[in-house]
């Protein structure tokens, strides 16, 4: 069901990019990439019941890995994407030994801290561009065709289709059910022999794979990255996408990414008209307020309402 709907979505995207202005096609790509990150995040937060406030760091690791290989060693972004996912997975694997011993409050703190440490590394490591970042990152190519915005949108949404199909199979498998059991009653699951720490680690690593692959595409599509592109605020945005769509929902990830990106655009266009003095990342005020309002009014996300409506 996830697989087929994902395919349909891909076909729709592949069709509308031909009529969409290139600016909006770029946004569509961004939505796809963020959705990919959020699908991974939902596995970790929604299904396994954990918290990550550092997901932007994995997105950044994927982006920096692919971009560095491409800029410094002229390695094709196709391979860079795989490497980005792998390096992000390795980083997550290493960090999991620190982070996953903790729960809730402290896990949130630890992932936040680790995300910022990684951002400090981006800033301080001159080989990967330091504070000024990496410019002129080579794009994806097939033969002599260099990707344009349309091709990036299709690539991103092809990955969304694959990613959601895979995640869909996962959550309906024993693995996914064990994750839900862990999030509801970890000790109870352990007493049945569920190796909760290993399962949480695998899920954390998997979420980093999603983020890393998405980040790698982002680097090539934007052709320029610097540490501010992967800040704490982006991690908060990913949380917002999860929460808006519904943490324990895979389609929620797609909806959440769409809503947040669209909202950002609307705010960017509307707010300066109403309040000419607004500058900088002023959208964050609204994002914060929406996050709080969602959690108070609809803590299980938009999709929970949709499925209730369908049932009724």
């Amino acid at each position: 069901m996830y697989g087929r709907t994902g395919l349909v979505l891909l076909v729709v995207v592949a069709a509308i990019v031909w009529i969409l202005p290139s600016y909006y096609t770029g946004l569509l790509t961004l939505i796809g990439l963020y959705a990919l990150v959020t699908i991974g995040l939902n596995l970790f937060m929604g299904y396994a019941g954990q918290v990550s406030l550092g997901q932007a760091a994995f997105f950044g690791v994927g982006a920096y890995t692919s971009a560095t290989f491409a800029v410094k060693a002229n390695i094709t972004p196709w391979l860079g994407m795989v490497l980005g996912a792998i390096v992000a997975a390795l980083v997550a694997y290493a960090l999991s030994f620190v982070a996953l011993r903790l729960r809730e409050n402290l896990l949130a703190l630890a992932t936040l801290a680790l995300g910022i440490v990684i951002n400090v590394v981006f800033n301080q490591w001159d080989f990967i561009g330091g504070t000024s970042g990496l410019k002129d990152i080579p794009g994806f190519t097939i033969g002599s065709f260099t990707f344009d915005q349309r091709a990036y949108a299709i690539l991103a949404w092809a990955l969304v289709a694959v990613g959601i199909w895979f995640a869909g199979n996962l959550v309906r498998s024993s693995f996914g059910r064990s994750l839900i059991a862990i999030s509801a009653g970890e000790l109870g699951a352990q007493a049945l022999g569920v190796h909760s720490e290993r399962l949480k680690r695998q899920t954390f690593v998997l979420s980093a794979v999603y983020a890393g692959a998405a980040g790698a595409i982002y680097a090539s599509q934007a052709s320029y990255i610097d540490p501010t592109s992967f800040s704490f605020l982006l991690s908060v945005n990913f949380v917002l996408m999860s929460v808006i769509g519904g943490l324990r929902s895979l389609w929620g990830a797609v909806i959440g990414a769409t809503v947040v990106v669209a909202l950002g655009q609307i705010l960017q266009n509307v707010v300066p008209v109403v309040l000419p003095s607004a500058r900088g990342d002023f959208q964050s005020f609204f994002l914060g307020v929406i996050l709080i309002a969602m959690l108070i009014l609809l803590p299980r996300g938009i999709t929970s309402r949709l499925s209730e409506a369908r049932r009724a």
Partner: protein
Amino acid sequence: MTAIPVATATLEVRSVTMRFGGVLAVDDVSFSARTGEVLGVMGPNGAGKTTLFNVISGVQRPTSGDVSLRGVRLTGRSVEDVASCGVTRTFQTPVMFWGLTVRESVEVALAAREFGGTYPPAPLRELAPCGLGSPGRRHAQAALRERADVLLAGAGIAAMADRATESLAFGEERLLELARALAVEPTVLLLDEPLSGLNPDEVDAVIASIRAARTDGVAVLLVEHAVGELLSVADRVVVLDHGRMIAEGLPAQVAADPVVIDAYIGDELE
């Protein structure tokens, strides 16, 4: 973790002591449990019964002493490793897997048993056979479902297989927890007050399940305040009071033991 042959399994508790600050919750307790027997664990409130279960199941590490299962040391292992060795438990307050249905909860336990609770290269393993609903995956899921339904029928809750665990009444939670524990085919089963809060029908169902498990060769450790039921179902009884083991023997002997009666009455007078 290779499972220990059921026929020879024995749980050995040696000089276990558990201290919380100034409180001696378990004080130098030793006993063993044989396969195919129900060992009742009695004692007034705060005697240390739950703490003892926590130590055996790996939830807490004892201050001193150790627990082993047929020569394999359990102390120091994680809860899931102890479970993989064949020792599982229920909780005084049932732990429900909210978000799953009743049947799915049991399937989690069955899968934990089947895969040893790990899914080595989980994502890959899950990806390979499933495809877009491939026959292999469907077949495996149907098999799991069938086994889950057998266990639910055994616990007398077959009718609620598709209900959400959030919707269960307290007694139904207890029955589900028992079915889940039996799904991992334990060698040793620790039941912490499985009868409390149940209606008479449910009590009968649990007792029937305990007897059936015993017939299958499981060593059942049963903590229960309903002394009548405990004495009728147990083959042997140990009695704790203030962390110390004050009696051990056949139900009839223990029931008549003045030390035991003293402990209970003393507790009531306190």
